[in-house]
């Protein structure tokens, strides 16, 4: 293990670790906080909540986003809900159970201490959000309502219709606005981080491009927080927003931050199927739909034929001819198995020829029973906006015919490696939310991304960063005219000039689409050695082609979306290759990472704890040099590691 790879997990019993760490952390007095500057990159749940909380504490915060407003960050699109161990339903939920479900759901590839802390602070998140005025769903008595999500047997998910992410983000954004008004936070919308600046090996600032003027700008600070989300858009088609990217993470990686578990990507089972080759974005249908929707395909291939020819409708297929395959294979959890399990099961049925649309890549999600049982109004209250969204896109009404769904890339569990304090291997550089690798192991449970983003931002980072900053207040403000900033800005300028000089024939998107196909075919739902090796070579070749033949129109000093995309695609090549490399190394199946070579006779994922119970942390070694793999062993002291079982 690299000596840099110290997870700094506090000693002692699981339930005391966070309390113990907090008591050890050095404090910064209020008058010294005023002298300290922190850069936060990204304004989703993690970034907005962190910036707001840091501003409240009295630090000087600069926050950056690529959109026109912090409120556009992709957290806004999260639909279903946020988990918390409140046990308001009296269904025997607890901090321990939320911790256990999350560790198990992640297929035993996350740290006990981190996950326990996440469960521990979950309750305070709900309190905070209600105090901010977030209109969570209520019961008729005025108390908060809950629903269930995949991979659990309790109801612990709080929600605001199908717009929970939006409401939580608007809450964090409101707190951020409060601090902007207060003068403690300065906001830089339409700014894109293009490099991290190190001084004496410590993170001291960033180079950002002003997306309106096109100019490069320098920003200095005492610490830098990365909250830029995941890298699912390496696949081109994903449920991520169009501008979501992995570039900030890759800039940090190239400056010495290790990258953790890059191959762990989540494929969400309930997305609207691809409809042809003009599409650029896939739309998620919330997992909450699996509370009441039943997933099925026909039992008979002749029915499949007729469906594809539009000779019959799904609703005409009699009950006895339907295969509710999740209920059949996983009776204990039924339609609420975790996402990785549900996605693979859909693929299995479609590969066997039972896909229900023309492309053969769709299964049904049916609400007929729920509408009968609950009535129109209650179904509308729970899912009305999702039904509407589905109908707008497909021109088919879920009230009349079942939805068609298929798995798609949705979230990345991997990310920048961080220790228990959420600090990366670069001193002064922190990573929070989806941008770090820490809490979800090989598979994230539904409604846990919002929980983690806000846990990191409101309650963990604002405490832990103090430990690092406690001896920094005497340091002068970072000088952005130093040789280090000069060099970083020059390197960015070279990158930009190179892109404009190519003047080739192919568009950025057309090359990105081809990268997406390589990724989906070889680093998607089923991965094998030959495919992964092939993917690495193909990505390298495609990157070469990009540098020889891409056409980036326009110029730097203007609003130029093609340049933005080209800069991001450069990083997606490297992310894609790193994902493939990590997937190749991890020859076990685990969570969302399914290696064809490692499965049981029934086709379930087969983990290899003897050889792979570790976090892979990749160290950058230079352009076109193979990165070095470090291993952080995962120790389970408090729970028994078992084979995941959702059958009984």
């Amino acid at each position, binding site marked *: 293990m690299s000596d840099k790879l110290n997870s700094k997990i506090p000693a002692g019993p699981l339930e005391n670790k966070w309390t113990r760490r907090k008591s050890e952390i050095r404090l910064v007095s209020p008058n010294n906080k005023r002298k300290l500057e922190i850069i936060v990159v990204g304004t989703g749940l993690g970034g907005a909540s962190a910036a707001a909380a840091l501003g409240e504490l009295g630090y000087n915060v600069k926050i950056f986003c690529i959109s026109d407003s*912090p409120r556009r960050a992709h957290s806004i699109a999260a639909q279903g809900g946020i988990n918390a161990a409140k046990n308001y339903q009296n269904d025997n939920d607890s901090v321990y159970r939320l911790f256990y479900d999350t560790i198990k759901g992640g297929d035993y590839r996350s740290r006990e201490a981190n996950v326990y802390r996440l469960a521990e602070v979950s309750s305070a998140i709900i*309190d905070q959000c209600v105090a901010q005025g977030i*209109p969570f769903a209520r019961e008729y008595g005025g108390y908060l309502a809950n629903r269930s999500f995949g991979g659990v047997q309790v109801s612990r998910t709080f929600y605001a219709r199908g717009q929970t992410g939006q409401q939580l983000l608007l809450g964090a954004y409101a707190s951020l606005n409060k601090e902007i008004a207060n003068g403690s936070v300065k906001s830089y919308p339409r700014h894109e981080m293009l490099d991290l600046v190190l001084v004496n090996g410590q993170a001291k600032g960033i180079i950002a491009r002003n997306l*309106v003027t096109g100019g490069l700008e320098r920003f200095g600070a005492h610490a830098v927080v990365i909250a830029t989300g995941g890298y699912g858009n390496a696949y081109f088609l994903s449920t991520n927003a169009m501008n979501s990217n992995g570039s900030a993470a890759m800039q940090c990686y190239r400056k010495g931050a290790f990258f953790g578990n890059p191959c762990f990507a989540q494929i969400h089972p309930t997305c609207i199927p691809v409809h042809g080759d003009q599409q650029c974005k896939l739309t998620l249908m919330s997992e909450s739909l699996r509370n009441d929707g039943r997933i099925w395909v026909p039992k008979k291939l002749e029915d499949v034929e007729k469906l594809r020819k539009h000779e019959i409708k799904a609703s005409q297929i009699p009950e006895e001819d339907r295969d509710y395959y999740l209920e059949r294979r996983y009776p204990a959890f039924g339609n609420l198995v975790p996402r990785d399990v549900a996605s693979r099961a859909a693929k299995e049925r479609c590969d066997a020829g039972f896909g229900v649309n023309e492309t053969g890549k769709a299964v049904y999600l049916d609400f007929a029973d729920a509408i009968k049982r609950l009535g129109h109004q209650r179904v509308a209250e729970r899912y009305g906006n999702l039904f509407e969204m589905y109908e707008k896109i497909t021109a088919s009404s879920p009230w009349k015919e079942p939805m068609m769904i298929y798995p798609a890339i949705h979230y990345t569990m991997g990310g920048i490696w961080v220790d228990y304090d959420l600090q990366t291997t670069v001193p002064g550089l922190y990573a929070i939310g989806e941008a770090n690798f820490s809490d979800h192991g090989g598979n994230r449970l539904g409604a846990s991304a919002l929980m983690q983003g806000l846990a990191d931002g409101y309650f963990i980072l604002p405490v832990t960063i103090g430990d690092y900053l406690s001896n920094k207040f005497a340091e002068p403000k970072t000088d952005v005219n130093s040789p280090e900033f000069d060099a970083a800005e020059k390197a960015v300028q070279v990158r930009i000039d190179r892109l404009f000089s190519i003047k080739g024939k192919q568009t950025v998107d*057309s090359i990105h689409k081809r990268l997406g196909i390589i990724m989906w075919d070889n680093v998607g739902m089923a991965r094998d050695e030959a495919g992964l090796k092939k993917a690495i070579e193909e990505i390298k070749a495609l990157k070469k082609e990009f540098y020889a033949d891409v056409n980036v129109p326009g110029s730097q000093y203007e*609003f130029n979306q093609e340049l933005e995309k080209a800069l991001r695609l450069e990083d997606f090549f490297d992310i894609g290759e790193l994902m493939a490399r990590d997937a190749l190394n991890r020859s076990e199946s685990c969570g969302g990472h399914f290696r064809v070579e490692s499965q049981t006779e029934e086709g379930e994922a087969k983990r290899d704890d003897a050889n792979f119970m570790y976090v892979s942390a990749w160290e950058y070694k230079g352009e076109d040099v193979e990165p070095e793999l470090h291993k952080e062993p995962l120790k389970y002291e408090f729970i028994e590691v078992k084979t995941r079982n959702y059958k009984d």
Partner: protein
Amino acid sequence: MEFNLKIWRQKNAKVKGHFETYHIAGIEEDASFLEMLDILNEQLIREGCDPVAVERGCQSSGPVSFDHDCREGICGACGLYIDGRAHGPDDHVTTCQLFMRHFKDGATITVEPWRSAGFPVIKDLVVDRTAFDKILQAGGFISVRTGAAQDANNILIPHDRAEESMDAAACVGCGACVATCKNGSAMLFVAARVSSLALLPQGRPEAHRRAKAMVAKMDELGFGNCTNTRACEMECPKGINISHIARLNREFLKAKFSD
């Protein structure tokens, strides 16, 4: 399907804009409006059109800039004025949720940016909506410090009241209400936030200050007055109705009387 697209082109905030017309073919009817623009941009780039080429006499200004992100109607980034309607000819959608099946094959479609004094053009179809951020910074929040909150179930909120608050909170901040209003008023946007918080007990302590501060900021930033034409309600992609404007007016008047 094929279309003639008449699109507003403007290099930046300092120069005058103009319309350019493009022909596009081979569009699937299940394609979204923004996917159609993506395809147009691919075509323009392949043809070698770009802002530099236009200085050499090229007839097209190159790829069209437009704001977009989630493409599922929730981030509020997209917003185009299409054939004279904010977010185009479908009800209760953002531009990214508009599909080409709503247009006649062969039609000429006019595409413009939001036009309002409060939203200056940045480039082509991209406008500057930071005024909305400034209005919310004036008071669109509850002043609670992180960690100071009581247990969530200590605050009881009747089901219907929470639902009504949520109706208003659904605002995505796209600016269609301003773009469609003949006065360029941001009242529906301001009302959505004021009303959502005013309906909740947590929002009451600051309700008066909030209403006054947000309305004052809206006026300061050059947005017009509300004359109850209800155009905003018609074009709001989230169907936010003007009863929230009535609540804003009540809050504002109460605040003024208590001064």
